[in-house]
């Protein structure tokens, strides 16, 4: 029986792939969004910054900052699932994925439901891919701050998947 890979090697490969995916997108850097990975599960983190505020009187996060955060979380989750499939497939196992930039899905529509004001705190989001076909995907995203069970916003979107073979 083949020995399993050392955990450090596996982690390094996965973290490197995630880093390359996230660092390639200028708008993710502009927003300051980070991703925490546990196995294949991602949690998006939006560290609080004053520049994310929309209403300085309350103060509350800008609705557009919240929408941006949730949409990025959905797109990265979808891209990550594609990348994961490629990275962990039996024929690629143990090999780092190629150096090409992963192609990103394109948003078709995105609907944000604002449940309560975003506080001047870090925000978190987790996306769930409800359906992912060859051409279309449907994704739901939940956003929260201090308390996981009190969402401040949620969203649903449809995405056009990148063509698999075009590289």
């Amino acid at each position, binding site marked *: 029986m083949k020995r399993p890979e050392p955990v450090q090697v596996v982690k390094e490969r996965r973290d490197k792939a995630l880093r390359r995916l996230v660092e390639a997108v200028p708008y993710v850097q502009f927003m300051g969004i980070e991703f925490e990975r546990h196995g294949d599960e991602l949690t998006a983190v939006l560290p609080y910054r004053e520049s994310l505020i929309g209403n300085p009187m309350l103060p509350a996060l800008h609705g557009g900052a919240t929408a941006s955060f949730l949409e990025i979380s959905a797109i990265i989750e979808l891209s990550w699932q594609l990348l994961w499939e490629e990275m962990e497939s039996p024929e690629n196992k143990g090999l780092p994925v190629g150096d090409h930039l992963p*192609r990103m899905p394109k948003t078709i529509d995105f609907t944000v439901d604002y449940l309560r004001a975003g506080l001047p705190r870090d925000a978190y989001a987790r996306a769930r891919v409800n359906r992912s076909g060859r051409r279309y995907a449907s994704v739901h995203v939940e956003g929260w701050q201090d308390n996981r069970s009190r969402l401040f916003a949620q969203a649903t979107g449809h995405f056009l998947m990148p063509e698999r073979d075009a590289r």
Partner: protein
Amino acid sequence: MDDARKLKIAGQFVSALPFSRALGLELVSLEGNVCEMWMPYREELVGQPDTGVIAGGAVSALMDTCCGTAVLIHPEAVTGTATLDLRIDYMRPATVGKDIIARAECYHVTQSVAFVRATAHDGEGETPVATVAATFSVERRMPR
């Protein structure tokens, strides 16, 4: 208040919102219940690294700000507002390097809800880059 003065005050209001300022949003025009707003193309707003197309989230943020401003300038003297929901349809990728102009119309206001629709253009062809349907909360000054 004349239109030029109203535009100036609303323009100052928009540029006082930190996230709008970070995106470089500028108020273009106000008329009744219609607001136009401009977002300059910048490389740090790119969402598709292989093509250079601007991020959907940046367009959403422009549309949200433009819609919210359309609610605030509505003749029925709305004093405060917040987004309840916003649906955006991306009809085509924005042209790389082109600025985007949003136009929002607050077409109906009830005691507590404002209904808004908006389109975003990059000046190329007839088809908009995106369209939006949104609802906003309405705060009014209490009658004395």
